Structures are given as structure tokens and as C-alpha cells.
């Protein structure tokens, strides 16, 4: 096994067994762990508090308890998170942070208090008018609240210096990841769609101090190899997240690879950096203000379609794959708008309606195959 294969194997292991990875990190670092619901949850503040933030993006459990709180037409990520919470699989968490971007998240926050009383909840709201002064101030206040809550849990104050250091670490993470995905697109066979997903996902369950050097090493190693010829199909992936994994298997089998992504679970996490001016919390708030083209952040110009067109052009991609999380209002509202724009530009599009746990993926498999056939003739 060469070093590239080794690192990939480590990352795959982490993504496949997150609980094990988290427990190992806890043992090695002696740190407490805070669960972070999607999206843009302020991991920097958690890290500065001397704790490890871990991402909670659903799972594949059978839903048995969560439907005491949520009707069937709730997105699967949130049903899964509730189920995991109620089932006790998050018992190692000292608290969770839930940001209320969409109507579902608002309610999940509220239900959490009753459904999982043992894991303290830190609820927060991101301002949608996030670019005006009042919006930035509001977010700084929300961050302050989160910081206070975390200090109560850890029993110690977070200093400015700790915050600055944590922000630096996360900036390094974001830069490292941006470099990694750019390089990875040149090695579509070594870093296929599924491996790419696992590597990026592993960041959610580990200490960034451990994770970053490995990704840097992987990027450097890749860079030393000659670019890989590829006669398959290159696509841009968009949506909340690219799961369940069997879909990725199917994509790989059909020689379809991700040239780049606009997934909330992947590139949206690291494509926007913090601002360089202001107090640490202001810098974080300005990062959100500068964040664009995401279904969960107000965008009256709806620039997401343009983003996808730009990515297609930049990476000379053959098309766009939409991972539509079923029952996700924000994503479902964006779709008709960018669909029209992509169609006008004659960009082929594959629409996959997904739930994290799917009983049958046969239909989706067929769609992937026909997409491939359409593009290969």
C-alpha cells in the first residue's frame, strides 16, 4: 500500500465508523465533544473552548422513535438526527448546537428539548439579512451566546487568543480542502466520487489538528503523480449531501466522477473564508455575510445557477448531478430556478431524489445508467 492508499484507507475508516473515530479522538486528546447540526455551525468557537466539534449529518438508522415528533414528510437528515439522539447514540456529546436555517431545523431544536433532555441544546439563529450592520451585530450576539453556553459547559473562559488561534486553524482547514478538491479533480481514478466523499466527510469526526496534515500530505503526494487520463463523465454535484453511499458506488461503476461540488456537506463548508478585520467573532460573522450561493442563505439574486454554470466551465464538466434531499424546502425551491438556467445553457442534468436510508435504489441506478448512456453516445 502506498502512502496515498494508506491515507485514503484511514479516512474511509473514519467516515464508516464515526463513533469509533470520535471516541479515539476523545481518548487521545482528552477533550470533550460538541455535536454540530448542519450548516456553518461555529466550530471555531467550539474548538477555541478546548472541545472537538463533530458534524451530525444524519445516518442510516431505521426510524422507530423520531416519528413520535416528526411527520413522515420531514427530511431524512433530521429524522435520522432525532432518531440517533433518542436512541442514545450521541451519549458521548457534552452538548449540541442547532442552527435554525429552515422551518424543519426550527422545530427540531424545539423537539430536541423534550426528546433528548440529557444532551443540552444550544439553539441559535443565523440572520438572513446578514450583510447589513444590524445583521452582523445580531450574529455576533448569537455567537456570544454560544460562547457563553460553551464556557458554562467547559467551566473556563475562552480567550481572544484562543479564538484567533482556532480561526487560524479553520482557515488552514478551508485552504487545505480547497487545494485538495482542486488537485483531486485531476486524479479522477485515484480519488473517485466515493473516496472523495469519504475523505471530506472524515473531517467531521476528527480533531482538525490531526486531520489537516494528513490531507496536506495526500495533496502533495497526488501532486507528484502525472495527471490521470479519464474517459468517463465529469460532473458537478450539487445539493445537501451525496448519500447514501450506494449511489456513489453506482456512479463510480458507471465511470462518473465529481470534477467539483456545490454540496452543503462538502465545498460549501470551506469555499468561503473569514474576514481579516474585526474582533474574532466579527470575523466569523463576516464570513457568513460573505457566503453566497447557498440555499440556506438569503439570496434575492439567486446566483446559484450561475455558480453551477461557472463550475461546469472551469472544470470542463459534462453535466450536473442534483442530489435532491427529499422534503428539503430550501433546496427544492432553488431547483426550478437553476434548472431553467442550466437547460438554457444546454448543460445535461441528472436529478436524483434521495433519502439517507433508501429501501430501493434500483430506480436511481437506472437513471444513472441512462444518464451515462445519454452522454456517451
Amino acid at each position, binding site marked *: 500500500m502506498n502512502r496515498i492508499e494508506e491515507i485514503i484507507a484511514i479516512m474511509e475508516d473514519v467516515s464508516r465508523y464515526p463513533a469509533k473515530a470520535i471516541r479515539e479522538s476523545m481518548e487521545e486528546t482528552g477533550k470533550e465533544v460538541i455535536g454540530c447540526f448542519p450548516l456553518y455551525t461555529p466550530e471555531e468557537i467550539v474548538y477555541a473552548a478546548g472541545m472537538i466539534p463533530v458534524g451530525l449529518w444524519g445516518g442510516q438508522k431505521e426510524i422507530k422513535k423520531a416519528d413520535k415528533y416528526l411527520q413522515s414528510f420531514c427530511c431524512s437528515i433530521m429524522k435520522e438526527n432525532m432518531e440517533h439522539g433518542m436512541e442514545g447514540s450521541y451519549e458521548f456529546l457534552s452538548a449540541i448546537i442547532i442552527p435554525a436555517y429552515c422551518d424543519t431545523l426550527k422545530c427540531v431544536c424545539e423537539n430536541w428539548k423534550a426528546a433528548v433532555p440529557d444532551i443540552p441544546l444550544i439553539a441559535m439563529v443565523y440572520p*438572513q439579512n446578514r450583510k447589513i450592520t444590524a445583521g452582523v451585530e445580531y450574529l455576533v450576539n448569537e455567537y456570544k451566546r454560544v460562547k457563553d453556553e460553551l464556557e458554562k459547559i467547559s467551566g473556563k473562559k475562552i480567550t481572544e487568543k484562543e479564538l484567533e488561534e482556532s480561526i487560524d486553524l479553520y482557515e488552514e482547514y478551508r485552504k487545505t480542502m480547497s487545494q485538495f478538491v482542486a488537485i483531486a479533480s485531476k486524479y479522477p481514478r485515484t480519488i473517485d466520487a466515493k473516496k472523495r466523499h469519504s475523505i471530506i466527510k472524515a473531517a467531521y469526526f476528527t480533531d482538525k489538528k490531526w486531520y489537516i496534515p494528513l490531507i496536506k500530505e495526500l495533496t502533495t503526494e497526488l501532486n507528484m503523480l502525472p495527471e490521470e487520463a479519464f474517459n468517463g463523465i465529469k460532473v458537478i454535484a450539487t445539493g445537501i449531501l451525496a448519500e447514501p453511499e450506494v449511489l456513489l458506488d453506482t456512479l463510480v461503476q458507471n465511470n462518473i466522477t465529481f470534477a467539483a461540488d456545490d454540496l452543503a456537506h462538502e465545498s460549501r463548508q470551506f469555499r468561503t473564508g473569514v474576514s481579516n478585520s474585526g474582533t474574532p467573532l466579527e470575523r466569523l460573522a463576516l464570513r457568513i455575510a460573505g457566503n453566497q450561493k447557498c440555499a440556506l442563505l438569503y439570496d434575492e439574486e439567486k446566483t446559484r445557477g450561475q455558480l453551477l454554470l461557472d463550475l461546469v466551465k472551469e472544470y470542463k464538466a459534462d453535466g450536473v448531478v442534483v442530489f435532491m434531499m427529499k422534503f428539503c424546502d430550501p433546496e427544492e425551491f432553488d431547483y426550478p430556478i437553476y434548472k431553467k438556467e442550466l437547460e438554457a445553457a444546454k448543460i445535461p442534468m441528472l436529478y436524483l431524489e434521495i433519502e439517507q436510508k433508501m429501501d430501493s435504489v434500483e430506480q436511481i441506478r437506472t437513471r444513472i445508467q441512462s444518464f451515462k448512456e445519454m452522454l456517451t453516445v
Partner: protein
Amino acid sequence: MKESKTSKQLLQELLNQHYEEALEAKKSGELVAWSTSIAPQEFLETMDIKVVYPENHAAAIGARKCAQEFIDNSEARGYSIDLCSYARVNIGYMDIKESVAGNIPMPDFIFCCNNICNTVIKWYENIAKELHIPMILFDLPFNHTYEVPDHSVKYIRGQFENAIVQLEEISGKKFDYDRFKEVMKISSETAKWWKQASNEAAARPSPLNGFDLFNYMATIVCMRGKKEGLNLFKLWAEELHDKAKRKEGPWKDAEEKYRVMWDGIACWPYLSDTYKVLKKNGINMVTSTYPDSWSIIYDSNDLDGMARAYSSNYANRNLEFGADNIVKLVEDFSLDGIIFHSNRSCKLMDFRQYEVQRKVSRRTGIPSVIFDGDQTDPRAFSLAQYETRIQALVEMMEQKKKERANRE
């Protein structure tokens, strides 16, 4: 001498006038805004800008049983069947522009307030994008705490100030602060009378047949800042008060046997079906969680108070408040039961319902049922299921009545 009108006659006249004026304004080149239903209309009223409320219009289309055509249109363009049906109807209407339920002019700008849900942000973004028009957004953060926190008030106030600048830019007119003060006063007054009228239903029997609340709702949405609105609700409150004094119940031909609350929006396409099933069983819906959302009351010229009031509707409050609110309604309106509408369109209202139901049931002991429906999508409702659930509710309420009688 003019004959005096009943509030019902006035209601219809005002609604017609509301739509006619908007169409007229558009024809003569004036600005028209599309607004969400609980937005700070005070700003638009002050600037004398005509407003249309897509939720009202979609509800009217639903009630005229012609929603499907509009829904099909938007779904064909990629709108998911799982999205709020008001949005699907409205977006379909933007293309078809013709309905037997009445027409509305296309907007010149968008006025959106997310105190009802975040769905409206996405829906209105799409309108703004499709029509290339500006959008004013009031982002009223969801209150996870019981009360509206101070930093939210500050943020909302900042947005009010920002919106004034945006409105001046869009309209090319100066904002008249004296007029604003007056509009604020009228709006609060109207809201008080609205609340007063709906509170008359606390009398036993209730002078109000609660489904009328749904009818009057269209007017509280669009007439809150107008003197005509104020007069209408005052008249309605007085009518109900007199009726209550005379001990007249909701119906001439039937007796009010059970008093219930309705949680959520009506099923517009099945308004009379859902109503008849209740009436047949002597059930009067005397109150609902929803109409109280327009009780937006604050002191004139108090922008912070206004910010707080707009963020205090139950949809924007935490679950504990939601439960307390219903417990209070159970007491104030002497309720026998609760009907929860699990409205396929409205995730924000639905996804707290189960826990609210449990909490209310634990604290009050009164029976309740949940039925599946939708506010405007006719495909998401089954009359048979509804009837079965109501039947179950009647049995439980009857049982409770007997237990009470035995104790006394």
C-alpha cells in the same frame, strides 16, 4: 339616509375594493407590492403603496376549488409536490395570470417577512428572480427563548430602518413619519378590535361560528392599516357582543354541543365539507391558534415595540409558548376538544404538533385528534379520514362529559 350594513356585507365589499384598487393602481402605472400575510404593512400603507397578499389570493383560489390547475403548472416547471401549496398556486398564477377566483396585478417589488416561516424567503426569492424585481426582506429570527430577546429586537429595528431607505429608493418618494405614526395607531387599533371580536366567542354559547374567523381573516391580512378595516372589526365585535348578550349561539337551526379549537390553517378546497361534519355533530370551532397571529399591538411610534410585536406571533415562538398558548385557549374558551390539522404544506406548524398535543393533553386532559390535510392542495385530504377522526373526537368528548356529570 344610507342603510347600515352588516359586517359580512362590508367584508365582501372591502375585499372586492382591495383587489380592484390594486388592479387600478397597476393600470395607472403605480407601484404594487406582493407581501407575506403578517408583514409590517405599516411601511407600505404610509407610502400609499398598493399591496396584494399571495397567501390570501391562493386561499381564495383554493376555496373556489380551482387550485389544481395552478399547482400543475408550477409542478411542471420543477416545483416539488412537497412544497407549500400556497407557493405552488401563486407561482402557477404568475404564469397563467387568470383565475375565476379573481385576478391580481403582478408586483413591482416584493415585501417579505419570515415571522410565519422561512419558506416564504425561498418562495419570494424566486418571484423576485423570475420577475427581475427588488425584494425587501424582514428577517425575524425564530425565538427559541420564551420571549423575544433584546438583540433580536435591535436587529429587527435595524431592518425597519433599512427598509425605509429601500422603499424611498424604489418609490422615489420620501417617507412621511407623521403619516407613519398615524398608520401605526390605526393598525394597533384594528388589531385590538380583531382580538376583541374573536374573544366574544368565549361566551357560552358562542355567538361566533368559528369558520367565520377564516372568512374574516382575509380582511385582517389586507386591511389592518386602514380605517375601513378598523371600522369593520369594530362593527363585527359589536354585532357579536350583542348576539352574546342575547345568548344567541352560532347557528339558528342547531345547538352548540361541543366547543373546539382548530390548530392551523383551514382546508380551503374542503371548507364546507369540513364545516358540515362539525356542525352535524354539534361541534362549534370557537377559536384557533392561527387568527391570533394578527393581534399585533404596540404603542404608536414605538419601533422597538413594533419589532417585538411582529416577532411574537405563535409561529415564531418556541414550543413551550405554543403549548401555554393552547392551554390558555382551553381555559378561556371552555374547550371540550382540539382538532389539529396536520397540514402537508406547512412544516413549521406541523413539526411541533405532536409534542404540543402531548403537552396540552397532559396539562388539560382534554381530548384531541390530528387529521391529514392541506390548505390548498386538494389531493392531500380525505374526507373519510377526517370524518373518522372527528367521530373519535366526539366519542372522547362525550365520555368526558359523562365523567364530569357523574362527578357533579
